[in-house]
């Protein structure tokens, strides 16, 4: 008599166990690997995210783990090779995802990535450095046309996001630059403020204090539209060069996570990235929040990866580290 009942109960228990993956999620802390050192822009953004995330997904707190090295490849690889249970995620940035695989030497591809949600973008502003022989977009272009490879443009590292951005811009605008790599954005900015290079690519937040003090002059922004921080700075498009570029970061995980866990994470991250407190704190940090869902995030990454591949092949850097 009891048998059918217990069979039904057993079946229920099994069903419940299946659903438990998503229902109980997260049963333990969700870890987010930041592939850069503590204290940088991506790290601080992730920490703000972890803080606000708790409001939208009850449970144990989100934990940030810094795993820097290899331009972000090491931490990204760690996140993509983690057990696909939703408990290990990563900050997915443009450099490690869309650029590094083209140089070779990474043990992951774009196809290994489960895109969860885009957090924001780092807008690219081109500035004229101290003592530069130009101070607006028109003069910059005229000088570049008259002096091929005559403008020295500082960037934050060879083959990094803003190096590729400038190369890509040069191809569209049909001008060429001498790209001067530095060991990081702040080193490049120091050289720029000191007048040791002519121009550089920076984020609006990096450029703002120096633009305000008059040490450097904003030339143009690689966006569709002008931005609030620099309302008087034109876009490249306004100047007749159809070109946009920005770097970005979001939350990624390994392929093969349970669909319901992904859905739950996507929902909570959407709520987090559109949360007023999150947006305000990110703005204070000088970050540009731009939430997009997993599919749109993936499209952005694939587009940039394709553009970058063509440039990297052109530069002769394709698979150079293989």
């Amino acid at each position, binding site marked *: 008599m009891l048998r059918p009942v217990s069979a039904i109960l057993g079946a229920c228990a099994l069903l419940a166990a299946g659903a438990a993956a998503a229902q109980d999620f997260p049963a333990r802390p969700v870890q987010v690997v930041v592939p850069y*050192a*503590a*204290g*940088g*822009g991506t*790290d*601080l953004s992730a*920490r703000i995210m972890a*803080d606000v995330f708790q409001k939208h997904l009850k449970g144990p707190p989100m934990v940030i*783990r*810094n*795993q*820097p*090295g*290899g*331009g972000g*490849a*090491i931490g990204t*690889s760690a996140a993509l090779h983690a057990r696909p249970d939703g408990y290990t995620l990563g900050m997915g940035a443009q450099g490690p995802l869309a650029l590094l695989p083209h*140089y070779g*030497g*990474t*043990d992951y591809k774009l196809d290994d990535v489960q895109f969860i949600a885009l957090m924001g973008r780092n807008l690219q502003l081109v500035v004229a450095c*101290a003592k530069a022989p130009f101070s607006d977009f028109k003069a910059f272009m005229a000088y570049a046309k008259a002096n091929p490879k005559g403008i*020295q443009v500082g960037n934050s*590292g*060879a*083959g990094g996001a803003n190096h590729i951005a400038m190369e890509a811009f040069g191809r569209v605008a049909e001008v060429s630059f*001498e790209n*001067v*790599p*530095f*060991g990081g954005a*702040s*080193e490049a*900015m*120091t*050289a720029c*403020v*000191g*007048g*040791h*290079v002519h121009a550089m690519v920076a984020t609006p*937040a990096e450029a*703002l*204090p*120096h633009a*305000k*003090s008059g*040490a450097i002059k904003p030339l143009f922004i690689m966006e569709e539209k002008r931005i609030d921080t620099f309302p008087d700075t034109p876009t490249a498009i306004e100047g007749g060069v159809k070109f946009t570029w920005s770097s970005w970061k979001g939350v990624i995980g390994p392929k093969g996570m349970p669909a319901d866990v992904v859905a739950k994470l996507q929902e909570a991250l959407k709520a987090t990235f559109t949360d007023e407190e999150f947006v305000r*704190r990110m703005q*204070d*940090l*000088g970050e540009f929040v731009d939430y997009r869902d997993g599919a749109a995030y993936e499209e952005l990454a694939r587009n940039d990866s394709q553009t970058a591949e063509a440039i990297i092949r052109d530069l002769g*850097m394709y698979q*150079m*580290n293989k």
Partner: protein
Amino acid sequence: MDILQHLSAVLSLEVMWFIALGTLGGLVIGALPGLTATMGVALLIPLTFGMAPVAGLNMLIGIYIGGIYGGCISAILLRTPGTPSSAATVLDGYPLAQKGEAGKALGMATIASFVGGLFAAIVLATLAPQLASIALKFGAPEYFALALFGLTIIASLSGDLLKGAIAGLLGVLISTVGADPISGVSRYTFGLPGFAAGLSFTPALIGLFALSEVFVQLEKIVGDKIVTLKVSGRWPNRAEMRESVPALLRGSLIGTVIGIVPGVGSGTASWIAYNEARRASKTPEKFGTGHVPGVAATESANNAVCAAALIPLLALGIPGDVVTAVLMGGLMIQGLAPGPMLFESRPDIIVGIFGGTFLATVFMFIFGMLGIGLFSRILLIPKRLLTMSIVTFCFIGAFSINLNPVDLYTMVAFGVLGYVMQKFGFSQAALCIAMILGPMAEANLRRGLLQTRDNVLEFVSGPITITFLVLTVLSLLWPLLRDLKARRRMAEQPN
């Protein structure tokens, strides 16, 4: 009147409490190998989100100042530089502790850190806007010339010139592992992604100095006799104090100037200060054997860098080292963009930071002085237990920086290398200096030549570049000149 008003904000009990807490926390973090001042500041930034700017920022500055000081404790007692900036303190601090004079070494290190910190803080508060422009004068050729000058320290520090040169060249060679600074190509990584960014410096340093010493100690305690060190002498005596004054002043000045130049850092400053103190000393042969002025030079220099690095940060918005870069993040979070505008728009913040820097330096001195007796007792722990704990800390420290297992291999490999070097009389200091300055010299030489289109004459044309290149030549000739002078004096003396 305004300044007093702004200062009173710093002197509130709450703010002072945070500064004291930060300094003490920094001291502990700095003393533990592998936990650096940078990590301390970065990890605690989120805590400052909700605080008033002056309280939050000054707590971070306290961690910074306490952290750089704390590094000397383990350097002196255990030959384990707690932070890379204390590596040079090992040279004289550790032999002093081994002689039973741990108190003397720690006492001088604390006084030196205080003097150096105070000196730079005074410069910060009085001359920040005027001096900040030095930071802008350094382009690629200037950095290259400075690095080259720094590398000449190897010649005077390593005793046997040939062995020193070999150690130095090995260090430069090791520093080329990782991404090429100009083209981005991976070099000597053997396809291991873990080496793509180069060998991690702190794990290498921990292996080179601490683990190698463990091996040396192991040999000594094989006989199972328990050696207990004496621990005595809280203060350096008057003669030693007097002898250390020139080293202190030189270290403070060198630390302040190097701190203002962005990206050079306290490691370089303390090596240069050590070398200059030795060069100027009447008894250079005593350096490296447990000589109090040696500790005075390095510790005054590395703590002077702390406050000095705030000069370009606050006045120009240019972070001078990794810690100040992280501090800049802390400022931005508070909605404050550092730079000349900050002096006009928020003088309360500027005065608050100046005040906080002084206070943190004072707290560091108090905690250090109170702690000396306690710290020194570490040496009373039976050697077998102590050695085992050091090994544990070596591993934890090397791993905790990047959570990268490759760093553990690096640490162990450098431990073996350091042991072999010690056995055969190669200078570990030379290797360490070359690993700090090699990359700086290489990247800037190549960047500069790229910018001048391989025009060497243009590259060496700047006044700062020429000055450092001349200093480089003089520094290399100095030992020869000194020998020559000594020989002439000998010849002049009547039989």
